[in-house]
């Protein structure tokens, strides 16, 4: 691999995914192709599928849906027949001879996360071109885009773009004369945060309750309809055409060694100019805040999330943490979805934590006891504390329940649910204690049993 020269520094913002967004009617095929759209497709079709997998692996692309799993590696887990291998009576049902599927996780619902919906509204063809290249690379002939149901205009634009792609011959049978066939279905969900978990999403796409599956087997061997399946986030797949067009070394001129490439940082909350800022991975909040005009009305920063409510809170101490997968983890949080929710000094941490916990309580799918019961009790305790009826011992109870949810739940929802609580107490314990002191006048101190109603 050729390293970029030491002196090379990309610009503070590096619009790749967002480079078409300023165009009027940027969602149309005409504007997509004006700026190089669907050109990567023929490059990809001229390449062996296995080499495309290697390209994405070498580019270092990591999943943009929160976990940061290396994308090329995920694709390489899809069992493929060996060169010249034909199914026999003994192997005809083996995974390598089953149909392969690509499923796009467009169920954007992690609190604070707002990058995939604007991408699908402004530039749906970048996702579709990525779907075609990825399907070709993993040899899938069916791709489903599972998009949350509450964003109807993004769904319209996706439908429209899929139709345009069919009409232009980018989808359907014998695409570009290659003999490769692909159908894409836009599938609307029905309102369930848990369906962002990839195995719950697959169950939902199979027409079932969206509850996570036990892993292993992983989707790569037993995914949709128990066949080999890649599940990737919207932003991940929309990035693929630019890697094919620009090459791995170009991609690595942005970001850091283990987290290369550009990333859409979503700034929301108490900032002057909230919005989507596409910058190299490893950009800090200090840099992003400067570009976003600083804190709203100059009121100081109190706490923020690096990647949605499931990633432990950061404070003003963390303004210079490089926001990539390693940087966020080394500082005690996670990069998540780069959903930077920014709160100023006016916001109560115990209140914010209570609101998030109520969210997890509602969205817990009910399959496993630690998450279902844990979030119920955590929400109750936090509601009591926020009503000034808590005691200092409630903090210990919260942490005790959290330790019984973290790592003991069936999927990552439980782990994410305790993040705001444990990090909130870690950095702002005194605020929780102060709530216990501020009993409103006229209330007796009778213990109210959380959840007893």
């Amino acid at each position, binding site marked *: 691999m050729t390293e970029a020269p030491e002196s090379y520094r990309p610009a503070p*913002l*590096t619009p790749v995914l967002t480079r078409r967004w300023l165009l009027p009617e940027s969602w149309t095929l005409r504007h997509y192709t004006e700026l190089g759209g669907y050109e990567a497709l023929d490059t990809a079709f*001229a390449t*062996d599928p296995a080499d495309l997998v290697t390209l994405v692996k070498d580019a270092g692309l990591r999943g943009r849906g929160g976990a940061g799993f290396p994308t090329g590696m995920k694709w390489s887990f899809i069992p493929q027949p060996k060169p010249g291998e034909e199914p026999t009576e003994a192997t005809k049902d083996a995974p390598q001879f089953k149909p392969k599927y690509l499923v796009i996780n467009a169920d954007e619902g992690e609190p604070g996360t707002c990058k995939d919906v604007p991408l699908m509204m402004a530039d749906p063809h970048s996702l579709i071109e990525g779907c075609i290249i990825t399907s070709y690379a993993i040899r899938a002939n069916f791709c489903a885009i599972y998009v949350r149901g509450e964003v109807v205009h993004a769904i319209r634009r996706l439908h429209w773009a899929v139709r345009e792609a069919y009409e232009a011959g980018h989808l359907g049978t014998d695409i570009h004369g290659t003999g490769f066939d692909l159908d894409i279905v836009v599938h609307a969900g029905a309102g369930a945060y848990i369906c962002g978990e990839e195995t719950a999403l697959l169950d939902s796409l199979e*027409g079932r309750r969206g509850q996570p599956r036990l892993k292993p087997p992983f989707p790569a061997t037993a995914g949709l309809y128990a066949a080999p399946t890649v599940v990737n986030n919207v932003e991940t797949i929309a990035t693929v055409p630019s890697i094919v067009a620009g090459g791995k070394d170009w991609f690595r001129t942005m970001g850091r060694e283990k987290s290369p490439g550009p990333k859409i940082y979503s700034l929301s909350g108490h900032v002057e100019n909230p919005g989507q800022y596409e910058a190299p991975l490893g950009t800090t909040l200090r840099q992003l805040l400067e570009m976003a005009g600083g804190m709203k009305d100059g009121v100081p920063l109190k706490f923020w999330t690096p990647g949605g409510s499931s990633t432990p809170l950061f404070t003003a101490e963390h303004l210079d943490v490089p926001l990539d997968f390693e940087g966020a983890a080394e500082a005690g949080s996670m990069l998540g979805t780069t959903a930077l929710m920014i709160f100023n000094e006016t916001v109560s941490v115990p209140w914010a934590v209570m609101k998030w916990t109520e969210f997890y309580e509602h969205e817990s799918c009910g399959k496993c006891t630690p998450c279902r019961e844990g979030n119920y009790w955590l929400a109750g305790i936090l509601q009591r504390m926020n009503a000034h009826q808590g005691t200092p011992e409630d903090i210990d109870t919260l942490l005790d329940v959290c330790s019984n949810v973290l790592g003991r739940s069936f999927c990552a929802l439980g782990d994410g649910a305790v993040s705001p609580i444990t990090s909130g107490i870690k950095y702002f314990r005194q605020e929780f204690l102060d709530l216990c002191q501020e009993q409103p006048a006229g209330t007796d101190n009778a213990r109210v049993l959380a959840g007893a109603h």
Partner: protein
Amino acid sequence: MTTTESSDLDLGVFDGQRERAAAIVARYPQPRSALLPLLHLVQHVEGHVSRAGVAFCAEVLDITPAEVSAVATFYTMYKREPVGEHLVSVCTNTLCAALGGDDIYAAVRERLGGIGHEETAGTPGEPGSLTIEHAECLAACDLAPVLTVDYEFFDRQTVDSAREIIDALQRGEKPHPTRGAPLTDFRRIELLLAGFFDEVELGGAAANAGPSADTATLAGARLAEERGWHAPPMPEPGDRDSGATLQGGAS
């Protein structure tokens, strides 16, 4: 509910939907994947998922009504009671709430006589009837606080602007979403969610309504343009170390 009871239900209301139901089933490698869109189709007809709607889905997919009910009750968007002409969803998750979402939801409730979550002001099926709900994060945090009407975005709301929307909807008007297509009503949107995006009753090419993105969402792209910031230029295909078809470098 049991299978024996559902066999007594009159599914006649769905007679006009059999062609659409078959089209949904045909989209997928396996029929049961059609269940979520079929339930959206049921809500297009009835404004909620009734026992007859459950029986209809079960019949189309040849599964039991219990299997359909188990799914219908899992998802927030499938409603057990008839929804009004419009569904108003106010985000009250933390970020929106901190910027006024809780106050907006309280104002909406108050404006509609104190009704609560998933309750309806007016009579479903009649113009101006409104069902309200507090919603979880709607993926528009840079435009907070937000609400949606029939899942169309109304961004950067205030208590006053939300009251105006409610009043207009009750008068039978259709205020224009800040992003997206002209409002229709809850049932027609459910047809879109079932995957029929371009039927005449949905306004055909409504995908082409509205801006590419809200101006706030574009803050980064605009700043980059102003300052002349670009991603590094891509190498010309011939100059790339891996060659025009990637084979050399990628393997």
